[in-house]
């Protein structure tokens, strides 16, 4: 309705802040801001950029000392890069979070029902809700999973849902990550760092804690262990120290208090999984694997891979060990299936989606194709199939020739495309070389599912550090922000 009225005090740090056309997470929200949010604004306004910069430098130095890095390898040299961290938090109100949390839980529930269905009776395919070829012809559909009952019907134990906000501040789902979503460790580390470096900003605020993540994850993994095991041994399976996400693997194993193993630490005998210890083989019951399907078991998937464990899939199929996430979940976070997610939610749950997708036109359907062809210059067109290779078309930035070329591609193979409007992502005040400026952000909440689904309050807020950029990816120079969920 009315933009937030700046108090005289609030002008300070934000005096030159200007985000004309976007939803700002902190400053031009349209609701009446709760007192907590107001407090953050007023406190931030009292900082001068120099002081913020001093603290940002301290954060970076500390991350570096701690080796909280992702690793980029070139030749034989390992270069550890610190994920750029912005000291201005992104704050979500209790009401906003309640909406996100319920939406994520609903989505995870639907995804798990969908996965069970497509690996069993395939009702949703027979009822024609989702085209059969999208699922059965999907490169991520795993034959070894057909007919297998996984403990508790849980396929996706850890899920990361990528959300953005549009011009009206509405949360929209951009993508589901149902395989091995990364980033939870940064959420916990960023919080530690924030509370140490900016205690004066957080004091007295009722911010929901994030440190429950490790125990919750451990409990969920124990809950889904094979039946009849009194004290299940949970391990985290990592590709090893050369993996870019190794820090996260270490962090999660520590938070859970479980061994971090590599494929060579595990062995399978008589369909049971053991880890090699100094006291001999010890049974393993539940594996949080941070290794893609293709590398899990050279006997079933890629025979050249040395990262996995020969016989693991056999042990899994015999029900002697649980894998989290299950094999073959990639079929649910596919771009093509994403387009059907609102229908999948309605089909299994008989509910409207709480979190909506970005408006998506399925070119494989006549209306979708017609709409896309007619509005191409306003749309983003994405190939969905694994055969891809065509890349994206960003309509507003395309030349007439590119538009024409894409129209031909669309007509030739419409089922390979979806189209979406360009979203004006929300911005969050961010410390930039020229002062505090608005930068685009997204949000990845993490959901942990054992007997039920728990969502880590907040999640990873990624921020595009380049002015105007919509790309928040860390490999593209994106950074991270702490996400504060206010309890009241």
């Amino acid at each position, binding site marked *: 309705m009315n933009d937030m009225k700046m108090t005289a005090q609030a002008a300070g740090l934000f005096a030159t802040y200007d985000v004309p056309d976007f939803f700002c997470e902190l400053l031009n929200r349209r609701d009446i801001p709760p007192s907590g949010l107001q407090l953050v604004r007023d406190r931030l306004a009292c900082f001068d950029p120099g002081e913020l910069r001093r603290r940002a430098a301290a954060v970076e130095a500390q991350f570096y*000392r*701690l*080796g909280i890095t992702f690793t980029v390898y070139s030749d034989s040299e390992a270069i550890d890069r610190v994920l750029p961290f912005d000291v201005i938090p992104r704050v979500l109100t209790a009401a906003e979070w309640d909406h996100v949390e319920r939406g994520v839980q609903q989505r995870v529930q639907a995804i798990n029902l969908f996965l069970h269905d497509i690996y069993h009776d395939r009702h949703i395919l027979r009822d024609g809700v989702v085209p059969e070829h999208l699922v059965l012809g999907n490169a991520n559909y795993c034959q070894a999973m057909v007919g297998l009952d996984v403990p508790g019907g849980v396929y996706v134990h850890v899920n990361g849902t990528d959300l953005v906000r549009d011009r009206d501040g509405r949360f929209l789902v951009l993508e589901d990550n149902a395989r091995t979503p990364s980033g939870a460790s940064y959420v916990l580390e960023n919080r530690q760092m924030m509370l140490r470096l900016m205690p004066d900003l957080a004091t007295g605020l009722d911010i929901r804690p994030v440190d429950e993540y490790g125990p919750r994850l451990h409990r969920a993994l124990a809950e889904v262990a094979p039946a009849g095991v009194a004290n299940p*041994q949970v391990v985290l399976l990592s590709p090893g*120290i050369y993996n870019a996400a*190794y820090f996260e693997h*270490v962090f999660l*194993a*520590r938070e859970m*208090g*479980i*061994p*971090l*193993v*590599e494929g*060579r*630490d595990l*062995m*399978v*005998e008589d369909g049971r999984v053991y*880890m*090699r*210890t*100094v*006291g*001999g083989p*010890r049974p393993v019951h539940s594996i949080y694997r941070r290794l893609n399907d293709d590398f899990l078991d050279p*006997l079933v998937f890629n025979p050249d891979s040395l990262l996995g464990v*020969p*016989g693991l899939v*056999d042990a899994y199929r015999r029900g002697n060990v649980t894998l989290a996430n299950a094999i073959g979940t990639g079929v649910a976070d596919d771009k093509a299936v994403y387009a059907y997610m609102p229908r999948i939610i309605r089909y299994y749950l008989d509910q409207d989606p709480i979190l909506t997708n970005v408006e998506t036109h399925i070119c494989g359907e006549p209306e979708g194709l017609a709409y896309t062809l007619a509005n191409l210059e306003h749309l983003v067109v994405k190939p969905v199939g694994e055969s891809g290779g065509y890349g994206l078309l960003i309509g507003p930035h395309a030349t007439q020739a590119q538009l024409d070329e894409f129209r031909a591609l669309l007509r030739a193979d419409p089922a390979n495309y979806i189209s979406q409007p360009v979203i004006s992502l929300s911005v969050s005040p961010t410390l930039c070389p020229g002062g505090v400026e608005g930068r685009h952000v997204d949000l990845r909440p993490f959901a942990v599912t054992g007997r039920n689904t728990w969502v880590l309050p907040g999640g990873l807020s990624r921020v595009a550090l380049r002015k105007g950029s919509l790309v928040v990816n860390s490999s593209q120079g994106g950074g991270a922000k702490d996400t504060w969920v206010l309890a009241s």
Partner: protein
Amino acid sequence: MGSGIMTQVSAFPPPVLPGLRNLLSRYAESTMWLARYMERIENMARLIEVTGSSVQASNMDAGWDSVIRINADDALFFQHHEAATERSVVSFYITDRDNPDSIVSMARCARENARVLRPLISTEMWMHLNVFTRWVMELGPDDVGAGDLSPLCTRLKQDCQTHFGITEGTLYRDQAWLFYILGKNLERADQITRLIDIKYHTLLPSGADVGSDIDLSQWTSVLRSAAAYHAFRRVLPEGMTPANIVGFMLKNDGFPRSLSASLRSVDGALSSLAGEYRLRHCSPILERLEELRVTLVEQTVEDIIMRGLHEYMDWIQRQLRQIQNDIAHAFWPPVVSVQA
């Protein structure tokens, strides 16, 4: 009252804590090697520093060849260098990335092992190791000039000792700690026997002159390179003879870097693994170790020198290598691929 205290004690049997009996073989191996590399870096820094300060007075480049011999690197070194000068030896042992025994190479190995161990070691340990190894790995030729050598070695030694201190103060006492002790002390035992072997022969004018006039400052440098100078002085203020010095470094149980003290620590760690943690395969290793300790106790240093110090040091080194192999074979045996 007395019995009350006894009751209290018996309420705390040796800890058998959940999850700690299952040390991954790979972690045990990395823990051992982390300790070995840090100990080796410290010894190398000590040796370079002492060599640097003891040769300065006379001929700048004399004495540097002994560093190469102690480390048995003759072949590799002379492939790339014509003579053992201060400059060539120092760069070979500090910054040469192609030399696996250089401090830079060892720091890299320490770091790789520490990365493997990150789930296990304390944050304090990791943070210090991370900063230290990064610093070492960035050392270049400009950092090891003659004037910078002593402060550089001092910092290297201090950082290693800080590492040992942090580890002692923060590493959880379970199987991993015992493998750490094994690594550190096997390395110490190995280093001190190398040092004695080479220095003894270098410094002794001839076999017949045992106990005759020798250059006191040279023997002082031997003691200093083993960090034994002040301890020796305290124990034997008048006895700066080769036999006394060798005896002190081999047999004095009060000196923490002596061969006998190192072997005792190895024995303690192995016995705990066998006893508290009931790990099998320890007995043959303990037997081999016991044989080694018995020979050391039963012979006087004069006997040892008379029968051949070099041969004895050589035999000990072979036994130490065998112990390392036995440990590897017992606790991280080669992976036999399982085919379903």
